[in-house]
């Protein structure tokens, strides 16, 4: 039961527990228009879990450390976030390796937030609260964004469906690669890599996150040479191709200038990094919608706060915010590659980006049902340490709506970049064909690739080179759930 103090008692000057201030309401009835958030809390020793949840609700909405009479000038009960549920996290606490953690559910009235502003939403939800002393560690695990609030956002500038229509590519993942080495190539040398890979069969090439405008290659040079490469490859193959032009720069004005130049050269896609900030991302998404541009987002920086399980925020929440903010692509993990990723957690990110409606799926780390309110779909990008020999695994784990980025797996091919691209494209097409024919690609995959390698020598050489490359490390971020609500192991 709520322990809220009422009337005069509530507003006596001094400090009272958050629970008694009205931030803990276990019998709260959730409204359809509420923003919901679920946090993983590790309370400081001696702090009661309910009080800790109330403190999180308080500090992420209206509270300050002491009672203020000015609350009484407002409809303060509505503005207060309500912690309404606290569950112990399975496999934490006494007798386990991990300190006791709790899942705390908090509801926020929609009027706490400004429409169409990720900055405003996040200033509340992750603003002050993560540094609060009452919590030892805190992690935002999931959010439910109400339809009414979602409808204030543009969403992906282009979306998966229209991107495919513009690219004229259907029924298979798209293929890409990041130009390597990341740093040091001149514009002329850089464009060479782009041309070879696109001509060989990739759909996209990509700048890396830290390619902007350095002394070895200024941005205009890169754009000019890359567009020559894109168009030449398009003529050589009869396909629409693109290169993600990274327009990330020190100011939004500079980014817009670079984006305008990319557009004037006929580029179909530009790119930004997550580190430019939420408002800059929203500005670029609006620009992209206005200018028929696909907008790729590199998640540079995210692992500083998304990777550790006890503190920060889950990547699925970033996916949710970025779909609202309006990007068309976001790097969301590979499962089998060099970067962190538990298979079910990654499926959860992909669902968050692609679903029109997402049900609760605890095994994927999805704690709330989410209706996406006809917001466009955002294309997940799988990048980092993947190669043609894993095609059956990639297709099984990641499905069709994904860009598979084989950077090293294209450019590092022993017979050259074009051969690397041919190997990847052939492996993909042969695997799609086999899957559609009803074959069990999970088990037959290696044989399907070996059979294709008999007539496709670039694939043969690629498979030989990378046959034993795997990255089998344990994930740091995995789901914590028990199928029933009571049992805890």
């Amino acid at each position, binding site marked *: 039961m709520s322990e809220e103090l009422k009337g005069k008692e509530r507003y006596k000057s001094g400090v009272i527990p958050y629970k008694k201030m009205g931030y803990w309401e276990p019998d709260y009835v959730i409204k359809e228009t509420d923003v919901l958030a679920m946090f993983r809390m590790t309370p400081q020793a001696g702090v009661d879990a309910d009080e800790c949840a109330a403190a999180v609700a308080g500090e992420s909405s209206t509270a300050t450390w002491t009672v203020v009479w000015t609350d009484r000038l407002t409809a303060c009960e509505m503005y207060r976030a309500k912690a309404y549920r606290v569950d112990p996290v399975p496999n934490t606490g006494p007798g386990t390796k991990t300190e006791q953690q709790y899942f705390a559910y908090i509801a926020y009235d929609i009027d706490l937030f400004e429409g169409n502003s990720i900055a405003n939403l996040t200033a509340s939800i992750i603003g002050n609260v993560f540094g609060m002393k009452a919590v030892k560690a805190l992690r935002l695990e999931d959010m439910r964004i109400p339809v009414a609030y979602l409808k204030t956002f543009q969403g992906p500038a282009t979306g998966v*469906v229209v991107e*495919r*229509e513009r690219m*004229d590519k*259907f*029924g*298979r993942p798209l293929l890409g690669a990041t130009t390597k080495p990341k740093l040091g190539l001149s514009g002329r040398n850089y464009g060479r890599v782009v041309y070879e890979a696109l*001509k*060989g*069969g990739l759909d996209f090439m990509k700048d890396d996150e830290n390619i902007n405008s350095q002394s070895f290659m200024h941005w205009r040079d890169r754009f*000019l040479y890359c*567009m*020559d490469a894109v*168009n*030449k490859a*398009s*003529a*050589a*193959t*009869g*396909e*629409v191709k693109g290169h993600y032009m990274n327009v990330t720069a020190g100011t939004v004005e500079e980014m817009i200038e670079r984006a305008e130049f990319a557009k*004037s*050269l*006929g580029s179909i896609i530009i790119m930004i990094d997550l580190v430019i900030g939420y408002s800059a991302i929203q500005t670029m998404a609006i620009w992209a919608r206005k200018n028929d541009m696909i907008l790729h987002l590199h998640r540079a920086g995210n692992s500083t706060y998304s990777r550790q399980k006890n503190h920060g925020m889950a990547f699925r929440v970033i996916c949710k915010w970025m779909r609202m903010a309006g990007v068309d692509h976001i790097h969301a993990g590979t499962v089998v590659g060099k970067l962190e990723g538990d298979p079910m957690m990654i499926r959860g990110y992909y669902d968050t980006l692609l679903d*029109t409606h997402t049900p609760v799926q605890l095994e994927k780390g999805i704690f709330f049902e989410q209706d996406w309110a006809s917001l466009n*779909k955002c294309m997940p990008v799988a990048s980092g340490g993947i190669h043609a020999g894993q095609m059956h695994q990639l297709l099984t784990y990641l499905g069709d709506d994904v860009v598979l980025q084989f950077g090293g797996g294209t450019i590092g091919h022993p017979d050259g970049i*074009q051969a690397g691209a*041919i190997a990847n*494209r*052939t492996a993909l*097409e*042969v695997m*799609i*064909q086999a899957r*559609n*024919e*009803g074959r069990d690609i999970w088990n037959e995959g290696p044989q399907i690739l070996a059979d294709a390698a008999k*007539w*496709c020598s670039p694939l043969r050489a690629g498979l030989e080179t990378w046959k034993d490359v795997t990255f089998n490390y344990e994930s740091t971020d995995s789901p914590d759930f028990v199928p029933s609500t009571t049992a805890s192991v």
Partner: protein
Amino acid sequence: MMTNLGNRVTQGQFSFLPDLTDAQITAQIKYALGKGWALGIEYTDDPHPRNTYWEMFGNPMFDMKDPAGILLEINNCRKTFPSHYIRVTAFSAVRGVESVTMSYIVNRPKNEPGFGLVRQETDGRTMRYTIHSYATDKAEGERYQ
């Protein structure tokens, strides 16, 4: 002559594979029908990458659920237009998609001259690019003879 290694237009899902046999085409048709998608047949002698509207060999076959019947239509199209590009296109009417879900080429001309790249030099080093299909220098219906 196309300048890529396969000497061919590589649009569609399976252009890097050897040309599909009738049995392989049928297997893909079955997959699409199993998903509830409608299949259409389209042909063109203008394979420019941005030529979206190939001619329809009839409307998409919303009510045709028999793969053999669809293959028969494909083969009718091939007989009528032996030197054209022909593709099979699947359409999904599901909310959230409502677009093309598969597209693969099932017929192509023997010789594919491909495309030239026309560069128009403009301000500074800026360039305007035009992808030009050599075949379209001839009138529609007289290409790839």
